[in-house]
Structure formats: C-alpha cells, structure tokens
C-alpha cells in the first residue's frame, strides 16, 4: 500500500490501483454520511477529484493519487457510507483505476514514510 500527503492510499495489482482514504483521514472526517464515487469509464488525471466524502459537517474531495481510467467503483458505499469509517483501508475503498502511468506509484509514500509524515503533523 502507498500513500499521499492528502491521506489517500493505493493498493496496486498489475496495472490497477484501488484507491481509498487512510484511517487518519477517516477519523479526521468524522461520521461519513454520504459518498459520491466516480462513474466507471471516467478518465482521471492525478490530482483530479475522484470521490466526494460527506460528513455531517462538510464535503471533502478525495483526489486521484494516479492517472487512469475508472474500471470499478464501490457502489455499496451509497447504501453504507459508514464503511469508510469502519474499514477505511478495506471495504471502504472508492474506486479501481487502470493506471495510464504505473510509475506514478513510485512517487507515493510507503508505510514507513507515511507513518513518519503522520508523526510530523
């Protein structure tokens, strides 16, 4: 699993990256009450809004950590958005992206680097 400074994670299998937010991000958001996931087929550039997560208080964007095409979206979050809080790095994933440039993953933090980054906040 690799991480961004905006607290997204990606898990790579072949050229497909599964994207979610970290435990830290889920705790910061508080109770998630609504999730908007991208349409399958949508092309995203790294840094584009991939999903929107809504807590009681506010809406927050989740940014694409890598560029590519959405090949699967986690539609179950429309029924059970609280999964983002319960299992942020598991069942709370947002989308799977077929990467156009898999080398972008190399630019993301590994677990040790992300832990150090969290400790610095």
């Amino acid at each position, binding site marked *: 699993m690799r991480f961004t400074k905006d607290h997204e994670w990606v898990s790579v299998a072949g050229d497909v990256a599964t994207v979610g937010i970290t435990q830290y991000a889920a705790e910061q958001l*508080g*109770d998630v*009450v*609504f999730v*908007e996931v991208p349409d399958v087929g949508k092309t995203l550039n790294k840094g584009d809004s991939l999903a*929107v997560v809504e807590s*009681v*208080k506010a*809406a927050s964007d989740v940014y694409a950590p890598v560029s590519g095409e959405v090949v699967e979206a986690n539609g179950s979050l429309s029924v059970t958005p609280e999964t983002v809080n319960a299992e942020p790095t598991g069942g709370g994933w947002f989308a799977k992206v077929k990467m156009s440039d898999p080398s972008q993953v190399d630019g993301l933090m590994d677990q040790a680097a992300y832990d150090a980054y969290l400790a610095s906040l």
Partner: protein
Amino acid sequence: MSETAEITLKTPLNAAHRALGARMVPFAGYDMPVQYEGVLAEHRWTREHAGLFDVSHMGQAKLRGADPFKSFEKLVPGDYQGLKLGKQRYSLLLNKDGGILDDLMAGRPDDDGLFIVVNAACKDADFALIADALKHEATLERLDDRALLAIQGPEAAEVMAKHDPKLAELGFMECTRLALFGVDCFVSRSGYTGEDGYEISIPADAAERIWHALLGDARVKPIGLGARDSLRLEAGLPLYGHDADESTSPVEASLTFALSKRRKEEASFPGAQRILKELSSELGRKRVGLHVKEGAPAREGAEIADSTGKVIGKVTSGGPSPTLGHNIAMGYVPPASAELGTELKVIVRGKELAAEVVAMPFVAQRYYRKPA
C-alpha cells in the same frame, strides 16, 4: 461562521474540552470544541438524553437605565416594555433599513435591567452599537467575566431539578436568577436544539467546577459545535451569518414571530417602513425548509432551481438530518415557490437533486410548556 486567524480566544472551559479529547476548531475567534466522540452520536444523545454545550463564546450583557426596556426597543422590533419579570424574548437587532444585524435573547431574570445574549461573531459590534445608540439613556455592561452553558434534551429538566427543584417549574422562555452550585446564576428555559433545556450563565471562575458537576450525571454528555449545528438545523432555527444577515429582513428570513404586535402597530422599530410593506405585499424572497430527496447533502451556497431548471435561490444551511435519516436544507426562494409541497431542485456538484418545500421545524420542537 466567521473564523479568524488573528488572536484565538479561549472560553474558561478550554482546558476541560482538551482533557475530554475534543477536536478543537476556530469559531468566531474562539478555539472551540467541534466534537468529542462524534457528531452523530452527540446529536442522538441530545435528542434522547441530555447534552451539555459550552457556549461561553456568546456575548452576555446587562442593559440598565431609567427605562432600559423602552430604550432597547429603539433597536429591536420586540415588545420589551411589556416583558414581565422572569420572562425572556427572542429578538433581532435591526439596521435602519430593517436588515438583521444579529439575533438575540433578552430577558428579565431579575429586577436589574435587561439581560442580553448575542452571537459570538457579532458581539463586539452589537455591544458597541447598543452602547452608543442608547448612551444618553442607558448603560450597557458587558459580562465578559461570565461563562454560558446550555443543557439540552429530554432529560435536561430531571438533571437540573436535582440541583434545584424550582428549575423543573420554569416554563419555556422563562428565566430566573438563583444560586446554583453555590454561585450566582442566570438561568433560562431555552436553547438552540429544539429540545427542552436550559441556558445557564455562570461566573467564569466557577465554570470548570459546574461543567464537571453536570457531566458527573450519567444522563449528560458534552456536545460540540458540530451537533449544535445539526440539531438547530433540524429545529428549523436560523444560524446568523448564514440563514439571516444584514441583507435579509425579518419577513424574508421567516422570523415574523419576532415582530411584536404593539411594535408593528406603532411602526416604531428600525426599518419599520420596509418591513411592514413586506408583511402586506412586496416580498422578493423567503426562507423555507427543503427536504432533499436524493443524493448528496445540499450545503450552504448550493443553487435552488424550479421544476424547469431555472435558478431561483440558494441554500443557506443544509446537511443530513440524523433524526429523520434524510437530507434537509434551508434556503431563500421567491414567494411563488415557497408554498409547502412545491417541488424544486437543488444543484450539488452539477447534479440536480429533487427537493420539496416542507414546514419547519423539520423535527418537532419539544419545549416545556407550563400547565395552564
């Protein structure tokens, strides 16, 4: 919600919030708790039990003079000359055009002038305006050495009755001055959640002791500003600076209940000409409640469109209703679209979501009415 990065002020309970693990945010210049265990849990706790809020950032003052009630009426549309001892009234500070400068509570907990509570973000401007406008007839004393707590929820009365049985007898919008926890308090039966409950003005140096004493009751949990906002939204209560501001009149803001009968007859409050005209006919827009029937919550700033897709207004507050389980909002629309049952759209991130004009409060208020 005016935030400032300049000097961050602290309420007397700042250390107590941090000790409870609250998440702190800047609000109206203060470092305030937005949540303790979580907004949803705190919201539900308040609807089912009793929630304790630190609202010490709000402005408290006493207005005294030869006839402070008559004097105060120069600035607000409420009947304060007719306010009996032991009662309080909601009112609006108006500019000369009838625009709302702030909303406030003013009451007579004792026979010593008028006790006024205003919004935190507006308090410096409000108090300067009141003091200056009435300087030849009344004196405004800011009570910056007092903290303010709110205890809200169906179990609030039982909790407070334990400390003084008289408090159970206080009716909604009644107030009193009494010794509670061994200190001098102003207590009113009122709040900002739609629930029964009390607002309690206490000396700042006793705040931490009283906070802990109230939290010592298993029915009471601390509640942050996050749930305070979702609770007041469900109760249909406007948040000043969002759902009402200087550009809105009391009629547009659907706050005509704050215009007392005698004051309307006398047409003697700031902006009376415009406001009375709006009451009889000409109104450009009106604050309404919306049930957003699908999709994402519609937040402040979301456009409201009619059934043809034409943009007719904006959402001023909105979000999920934990009690109802669907999204709700308040916003301004032309009177022609303000009828209950009108089908409208709200536009969230480019998507048109079905919405319907519904009555406020969204969740029934449960104020304590004294038996006649």
